[in-house]
């Protein structure tokens, strides 16, 4: 029976994948053709979606982007045997956008049935876990340390050091918590992975549990991701049935169970201590650190809290060795980063590549410029707390230290492109507005500062007492940076100040340039 692959990634569905799948099934039934339609995740080349891939002896042959009306014509063109058609792409692996990537975390995404353990295993899954089971806890931790892996959630803290702390903390119970509260605009790597290859996340979490001696794990998924939540639950059930989770992981006698929890629409719960409060059933209010979650985390026990991509990077590292991973990247940013190219971009999608790739390569070579065809004016990297950079800074390489030196952040690897219609004073105002809406309210600099920020920006935009208000703005930003309890208030000044520094003309309502621009 011919196998056909159609993504059910949320973005693919949003672009019409369900309609295409229904149409394919309907026409196949009319023509008495037996088809096995496999619903996969997405490969992340969204401008080619909705997309179908057909299994042929020469590999999978792709067709897209499709409208429902195209499907009948595909059947007429003999697409089930790779027949020619104006929408025929050929092998996805040969599309330069994908061929130029280094997919260590995402090789199976869009290829396998995300709910199938056997599919996962057939595509190289669980080899890292097998290796981990043959190692001591310290050996696993050391491998992760030597790989140079840093937290992919945004903070970039070395994963191995965090694990080492939890390993050496004495406790009757330890936890593994996955932060899947991917709230940054312009990011979707976690969502794609949970929808397209959830078993790699499970495998990474099991390895982490073995490394630190934890027996219970939670995946905290934001409620804006209902599809990811369902797929993740199905994958946990499948992994449990197959003995990769439960009382004895792969017959090792080591227990590890995993549960998902749904967030409830609070951006702040992506901050790890707020997430832990939320998991405990409380308001998602940030905790003061110390104590670190690695010492006193969930329910007061030592806890590993890592992002989806951090955990999902670990199986490859265990399978191929720390050095193989560390061979990718630049400076102290080792390995690969799944970059998400988003916003006003012609070819948006997921680009997993070694650190060091420049914004220009990403936006121009991969992305093909703006969707609207107008010039790029600004890019925001790293979510709502990331800096806005102007078009003349696109040669910056993706690297934690380079971005920090330019007063920006790599964050979770999201890039939002804006064309020349954007007004950066509005974006600066929005940064405060968002912070005011999403602040947990615990510390004053964030709770009050964000509201004051909106007021000051309103006066600046209205051209009222510009010089005085710029002074207030800078003072406010300094205060929020220095005195906020967590990154929400502490980094909100980053988009604001970068907008002011790089786009002073957008703030100049009265003809007097702000001090920061001089």
């Amino acid at each position, binding site marked *: 029976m011919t196998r056909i692959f159609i993504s059910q990634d*949320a*973005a693919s*569905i*949003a*672009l019409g994948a369900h309609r295409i799948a229904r149409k394919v099934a309907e026409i196949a039934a009319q023509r008495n053709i037996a088809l096995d339609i496999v619903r996969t995740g997405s490969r992340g080349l*969204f*401008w080619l979606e909705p997309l179908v891939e057909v299994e042929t002896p020469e590999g999978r042959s792709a067709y897209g982007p499709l409208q429902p009306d195209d499907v009948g014509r595909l059947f007429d063109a003999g697409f089930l045997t790779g027949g020619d058609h104006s929408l025929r792409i050929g092998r996805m692996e040969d599309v330069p956008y994908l061929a130029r990537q280094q997919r260590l975390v995402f090789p199976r995404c869009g290829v396998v049935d995300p709910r199938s353990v056997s599919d996962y295993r057939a595509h190289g899954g669980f080899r890292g876990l097998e290796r981990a089971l043959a190692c001591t806890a310290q050996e696993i931790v050391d491998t992760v340390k030597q790989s140079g892996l840093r937290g992919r959630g945004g903070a970039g803290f070395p994963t191995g050091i965090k694990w080492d702390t939890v390993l050496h903390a004495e406790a009757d119970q330890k936890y593994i918590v996955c932060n899947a509260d*991917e*709230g*940054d*605009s*312009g*990011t*979707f790597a*976690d*969502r*794609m992975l949970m929808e397209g290859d959830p078993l790699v996340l499970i495998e990474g979490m099991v390895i982490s549990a073995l490394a630190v001696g934890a027996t219970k794990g*939670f995946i905290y998924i934001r*409620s*804006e991701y*209902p*599809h990811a939540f369902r797929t993740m639950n199905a994958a946990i059930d499948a992994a449990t049935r197959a003995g990769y989770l439960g009382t004895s992981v792969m017959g090792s006698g080591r227990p590890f169970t995993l*549960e998902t*929890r*749904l*967030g*409830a*629409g*609070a*951006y702040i719960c992506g901050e790890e201590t707020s997430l832990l409060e*939320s*998991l*405990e*059933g*409380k*308001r*998602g*209010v940030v905790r003061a650190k110390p104590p670190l979650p690695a010492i006193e985390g969930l*329910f007061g026990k030592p806890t590993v809290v890592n992002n989806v991509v951090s955990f999902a990077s670990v199986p490859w590292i265990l399978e191929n060795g720390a050095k193989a991973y560390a061979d990718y990247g630049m400076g102290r940013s080792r390995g690969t980063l799944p970059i*998400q*190219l*988003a*916003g*006003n971009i012609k070819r*948006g*999608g997921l680009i997993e590549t070694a650190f060091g790739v420049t914004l220009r390569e990403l936006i121009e070579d991969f992305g093909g410029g703006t*969707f609207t065809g107008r010039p790029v004016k600004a890019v*925001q990297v790293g979510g*709502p707390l990331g800096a806005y950079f102007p078009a003349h800074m696109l040669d910056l390489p993706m690297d934690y230290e380079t971005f920090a030196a330019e007063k920006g952040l790599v964050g979770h690897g*999201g890039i*939002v*492109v*804006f*064309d020349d219609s*954007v007004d950066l004073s509005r*974006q600066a105002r*929005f940064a405060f507005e*968002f912070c005011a*809406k*999403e602040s947990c309210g615990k510390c004053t600099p964030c709770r009050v500062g964000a509201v004051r920020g909106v007021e000051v920006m309103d006066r600046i935009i209205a051209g009222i007492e510009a010089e005085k208000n710029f002074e207030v703005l800078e003072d406010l930003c300094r205060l929020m940076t220095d005195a906020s309890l967590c990154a929400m208030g502490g980094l909100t000044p980053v988009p604001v100040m970068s907008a002011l520094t790089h786009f002073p003309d957008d703030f100049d309502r009265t003809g007097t340039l702000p001090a920061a621009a001089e």
Partner: protein
Amino acid sequence: MAENPQWDSARAREIVSAHAGRDGAALPILHALQDEFGFISEEAIPMVASALNLSRAEVHGIVTFYHDFRSKPAGRHVLKLCRAEACQSMGCATLSEEFLRREGLQWGETTQDGALTVEAVYCLGLCACAPAAHYDGEPVARLNHAILEALAREARQA
């Protein structure tokens, strides 16, 4: 979207006790109540407080902290329009303002016929095909006026 049943204390109590034994049970309970009834009644607060050995003030604090939980039912259909940066770069601000004006709504309000509630959301992870929305939980991408009009019509029909 299926019509939610009326608030039913006995059923609510069953839901609360079904989840009360879970680790950090508050969010799972509140989600389950809202899934069942479409909102979280004031009556649920003492119920949850007693099941989890919390004060009513604490439960009220939890319910009101999270944007998802509603204290009164939404319309028959819910449209969540993304207002975050990636969607802004593709013109979501103008698009949603015009849509709200045509429908005579502010953010979070429901049309007078009870057909459609329009809410703001900040990122749905559909940022490579912005502007984006969820309509009754199903993702919609590359929004424009025509698509929004069609969704509003669809909401009124069913």
